[in-house]
Every structure is written in C-alpha cells, then in structure tokens.
C-alpha cells in the first residue's frame, strides 16, 4: 500500500519529486484528447478555452465527452472532499504508470504539502522543486504564479474543530465538508475546510491556481489537494461525533473518470471512505488510517447541530467591491428571543451562541484579490487585527457567475464563523446592540477587468 508523504519530510536523495516532474513533462506531450494527458487531467477539474492558460491546448474531445468528463470538480458541496479524493486517486495512478513507463520506480505516491505545519519554518513556502529552476525545463514550475508563499492567516485549521460534516451556516451551522447538494460544480456555500485553507491557498498562489478552470494545470495543485484530502482523515480521527454523511444521496452519486489505461471508470463516495480501499489504497504519513464509522443515524437521533439558525440582519442592496476598503453598516434587528445573543456582556461568555456572517450571491469577473473582513474595527493601526473576522477568497467567482452546463450563475456564497469575535465585541465598551460595522479590505488592488459584487451580507445566529 502506498504512503503519501509530507513533501518537506522526504528523505535526502528521495526521487519522488524528480519523477513527478518527469511524469508531468511526459504527460504534457500527450495529445489533449488522451485521457491520461496532463491537459485532459487538468480539464476534468475545469476548462475554459478562452483563458490564457489554455492557449495552445490543441484538439479537444467532442462535446459529449467534454460534458461528461470535463468541468466536473465539486465545489460548495458535500461532494467537495470525496470527489477530489477520487480525482487524486486516478491522477496518482496515471502518474505512477507514466513513471514506470519512463523507467522509474513502481509505487509512486503523491506527496502532500502541509503548509499549516507550525513546526516547519519553511511550511508556508512552496517546496523549492516547484519554483527552481523557474523555467519550462522544470516540469514542476508554472508560469504566472503570483506568490510562492502564503500568509499564515490563510492556512489556519479552525475547520478541524467543526463537528458536523454538512451544513451551510443557515439551515444548520457551517459544516466541515460543505452543504448538502446535488452535483455542484460551483456556486453554493463553501464548507469550512474548503473555505480555509483550501480556497485561500489557491488564490494566494494565484495564476493558474487562482481559478478552478485552470488550477489543476499547476503541478502544486495536486500536493495542495493531497493535503486537503489528508485533513479529511485528520478530522475524522479527532472523533467526538465527527462522522461522514450516511445518506445515500452522498454515498451513491457516481462520478465519471478515466483510469490509468484511459478506460472510463466510475466512482462514488461510498468507494472512498477508507483511503486504504481507494484503488490500490494509500495512507498518509503521520496520520492513522481508520475506517470511518458509518452507523446509520436516524433523523430524530441527530445531535443538536441540525437545529436551524435564524437570520438577524441583512443588507438590502447589492454591494460592489473596489480596490479601496468597503464598509457596510449592518442594522441588527433580532427577534425578541434572539436579542440576548447580541446584548452587551461584562465578560466574554464561556459558550457563546454560534454566529455566522454570510456573503451571498457573489458574482464577479477575473481573479479578484483575497479580501479580509473586519467587524467594528478601528480605521487603522495594529489593533485592527484583533477585529479580523476572516477572509473571502472568491476562488472560482467568475465561473460561478456564469450560467453554464454545470452551474446556474447565481454566484458564490461564503460563510464566516464569527462566534468568537462577536463574543469579544459584545464585551467591549463601544458595543452597539443595533449595528455591526463590516469592513472589507482587499489585500492588493483589483486588477484591470476584475470585479466583485456581493448580492447580500447577512448575519445568522443559533
């Protein structure tokens, strides 16, 4: 059984990345119509011929094949984790076979990039093999990346503290894996892990990685997603009611792929619950493999996280973001029974009410910069950081805004868990029970031709 290793803990003389680079070069030489080619594999995640990264792609498959196999990535959905696990498994199989065909060793396994590893001083920097040499002779290099390192605030792992797998922050608290959906290529609320660190890492690196339609063209994509896949197992291992969904709608929806021979293959979530059973099986270095519990849970036996939340405030006009800070005043008007959740307190509560800030129907063009969100923050100074509520990545916003074969064009939804921050704000002397000031700061100016509009900002509480 393969073990996927930490890319920063590969032993001296290890050839995992060297062979990965050679395989990438070999796969890039295959025609795009070949399902085992680099382009085809990337297009399974996303494809748009008008984007510069897809220039020179050559002949593509016919429309029927493209509809079935391309643009299939699942985002804003409880299929986010299982779909990407399937995707990586077949990709890993194809790379491993390519390496063998090049005369390399058998049993190649995809390494993972643990950017959240606080014990590794280099963790936030992309492994050097992906950046040096910075030219086309390096199979792991990719032109157009905006950054080779990530701000530590964008790789925090608060998602692992989330108990429910599903949830959209409205009908129930935001889930670790995403909201219940049907096939969802783009457009619903991103789950906790998907929002942070997944989306943030994509947009922080930028370039091809910044857009789902080109992301998988960058070789670092696969190490990033191996880490996200690893975190799914880490989350399960933390126990305490952390369980995968048991609904047939999640377990049994089949997705289309190609295996290492290029033959059509199908897989469903039920096939990937235990990593040791995915194709030839794999484990993660430093993570105990385990067969997740699948005890059927009756609707009436679920823990209390299925209790719906209630809206207490919302904007009523569309908001356009710009290169400057955008501020919004949210008038708090909770129902009588929820007023207590927003009353001033003398000291932060031990168990504050869960509160979520939603950004709904976000539409836009291009790859907007990450925007940091602050609540009731002073205009400047170092103290501002203590009012940080979270960030919006807008990963895939253009695609989510465009009606197409795979999404309605309603835009994206992001949800920030502001429970802790609200708890703190309520204990401050300047707390206003009737208004919450939201400021949204871009981390860099908007590029020309880039735009973001937010349909509604709303606040929900339990």
């Amino acid at each position: 059984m393969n073990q996927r290793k930490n890319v920063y803990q590969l032993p001296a003389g290890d050839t995992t990345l060297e062979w990965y680079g050679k395989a990438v070069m070999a796969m890039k030489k295959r025609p795009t119509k070949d399902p085992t080619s680099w382009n085809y594999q990337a297009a399974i995640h996303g494809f748009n011929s008008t984007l510069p990264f897809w220039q020179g792609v050559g002949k593509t498959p016919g429309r029927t094949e493209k509809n079935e196999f391309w643009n299939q990535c699942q985002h804003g959905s409880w299929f986010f984790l299982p779909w990407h696990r399937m995707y990586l498994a077949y990709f890993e199989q194809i790379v491993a076979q390519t390496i063998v065909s090049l005369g390399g060793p058998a049993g190649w396994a995809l390494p993972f990039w643990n950017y959240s590893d606080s014990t590794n001083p280099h963790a936030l920097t992309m492994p050097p093999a992906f950046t040096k040499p910075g030219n086309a002779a390096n199979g792991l290099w990719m032109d157009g990346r905006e950054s080779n390192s990530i701000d530590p605030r964008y790789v925090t792992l608060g998602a692992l503290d989330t108990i429910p797998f599903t949830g959209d922050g409205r009908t129930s608290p935001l889930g670790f894996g995403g909201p219940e959906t049907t096939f969802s290529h783009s457009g619903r609320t991103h789950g906790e892990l998907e929002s942070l660190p997944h989306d943030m890492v994509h947009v922080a690196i930028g370039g091809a990685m910044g857009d789902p339609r080109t992301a998988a063209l960058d070789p670092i994509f696969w190490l990033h997603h191996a880490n996200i896949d690893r975190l799914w197992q880490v989350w399960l291992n933390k126990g305490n009611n952390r369980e995968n969904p048991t609904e047939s709608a999640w377990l049994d929806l089949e997705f289309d792929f190609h295996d290492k021979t290029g033959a059509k293959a199908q897989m469903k979530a039920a096939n990937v619950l235990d990593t040791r059973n995915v194709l030839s099986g794999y484990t993660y270095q430093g993570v105990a493999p385990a067969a997740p519990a699948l005890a059927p849970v009756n609707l009436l036996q679920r823990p209390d996280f299925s209790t719906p939340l209630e809206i207490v405030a919302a904007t009523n006009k569309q908001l356009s973001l710009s290169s400057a800070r955008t501020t919004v005043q949210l008038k708090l008007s909770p129902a009588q029974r929820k007023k207590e959740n927003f009353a001033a307190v003398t000291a932060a509560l031990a168990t504050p009410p869960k509160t979520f800030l939603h950004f709904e129907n976000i539409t836009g063009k291009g790859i907007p910069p990450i925007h940091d969100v602050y609540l009731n923050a002073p205009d400047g100074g170092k103290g501002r950081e203590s009012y940080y509520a979270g960030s919006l990545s807008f990963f895939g916003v253009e695609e989510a805004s465009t009606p197409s074969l795979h999404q309605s064009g309603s835009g994206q939804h992001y949800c920030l868990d502001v429970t802790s921050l609200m708890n703190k704000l309520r204990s401050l002397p300047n707390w206003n029970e009737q208004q919450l000031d939201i400021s949204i700061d871009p981390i860099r100016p908007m590029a020309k031709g880039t735009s973001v509009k937010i349909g509604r900002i709303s606040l929900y509480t339990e």
Partner: protein
Amino acid sequence: MSTSINLAGNGGSPSVFVRLRALFPAHPEWWAWAFSMLAWMWLVVNLFSSPGQAGHPGSVTFCTSAGAILKTGLPAYAILGISKWQFILSSVPAAISNGWLPWMVMVIAMMFPLLNEPVTHVAFSVKKKDRTPGILTFLLAYTFVWTSAGMLFLLLPLFVDTILAGQTNFVNSLVMASGLLLSAALIWHPGRPIRLTKCSLTIPINIGGWQLYRDSFWYGLKMGLACLSMCWPPMAALSLTHHNLILMAAVSIVIVYERYLLPHTSKLAGYAWLIIAGILFSIQMV
C-alpha cells in the same frame, strides 16, 4: 443567550415531541411536499368519485372528439354538425374554465416536490416569523407561471383530438406516446443540462417589509419559468394522454428521481421516458 434544543442526549433522552419540534423548522421544504401530498389526495379522491374518467376531473373525455368517438362512433364536431375549427373555437372557454383548477392541482402535486432548494432558500433568507408568508408567496408565483402556461396545455389535447379524430388506432396511440418520445429526445439536447442548472438558481431576498414579498414573488416567477422550460415536455405528454393518474405518478417519480438522484448530465431519464412511451403505446394499441 438563546437555548438551543439539545438532542445529543446529555442528561436524558429528549421526547419524540421535542425532537420533532426541532426537526420541522429545519425542513421548510416539507411545506411543498405537504401541499403535493394534499394535491395527490385530491386527485385520487376525485378519480374514485368519478369512475368514468380516464384521469382526474377536467380531462372531460366525452366532450373531446376522441371521447365522443368512443361513445358514439362519431367525432363531437360531426355530432354537432359544425367544422373542426368551429368546434375547437367553441370548446376553448369550456376547456379552460373546466380545466384550470385540475391543472393547477396537478402542477402542485407533481412540481412542488422539486422545490426543496428554492423553498429552503426563501425560508432561511428571512426571519422565522416571515418564513411562512415568504414560502407561500414564492409558491403562489411559481404556481401562477405554471397555471398561466397551463392554458396552452389544456388546449393541446382539444386541438390534437379534433384534428386527428377518426384516425387509425396506430396514429392515435403514436400521438399519445409522442409527448413522452419528445421528452426522451430532448434529454439529449445539449442545452438541457444548462437549463437544468437553473433549477438551483438563488437570488438575494430582502429580509423584511414589502420587499420580502416582492423578492419572494419574483423568485417564484423565475423558478416557475426555469421549471417550465425543463418540464414542459412530460407535462405536454400528460395533456395528450388526458392526465391519466397512473401516468402522472410515473412521470412524477422520474422527474423527482432525476432532480435529486441523478447527475444533471445523466441521460437515464431519457431511457425512462422511452420505456414509459413504449408501454403507453402498447396499451393503446391493445
């Protein structure tokens, strides 16, 4: 701080009542399903109270040319001594006035179960006290779209029956099955999955005031149109078969299954339409 209902079992097991009290607010889509169930009950009860009907009331079999032929051997217009077109024109008001209510009930029965996502969206976009009015406004607008379009669907069998009155059983059977054959063919239309994604459309809804009703109504209209663009072929097929109740149930199962359990690019529903069309054709021929 509010107290949430703890179902986790700390300190004793909550009663079923307590559990249900927490469960129902979490599923506003059950409203739509409840209306659907009531509509089905209405249809079934009316079927059994009118045993002479092929479908539910409103599919007035004798008043159609096909029905008249069954009873008298002559098409209705021939019995009345008028032309086909005069018959069609004179029958339009009766077809609409007799048919719009049963049509609306049929839409509620068949289409409301497809509305889990939009109903949930409306319900959780507004305050708890406004959920019911928001949902009802949405459903009203949605039903309004289908009922308006229903005028055409009600005239379809009148037109087809009259034009084809006196044709061979093969032709009539083929016409009966044609709507389902069209449904099957359109499954393979490249634009269909794009239209299907519109069933997941969401829009921002104002949290309160008259704007809440405006937005809910507007959303209902948009979803009604999206749904109509997807489901008109099987609904037209039902019109051609005079809304046979068993066929309605079969069509409902297929569209609900497709909506919730199939990938949006799946063609499986197309094969289901073909099978149902084949069965219908065979029964008609016999």
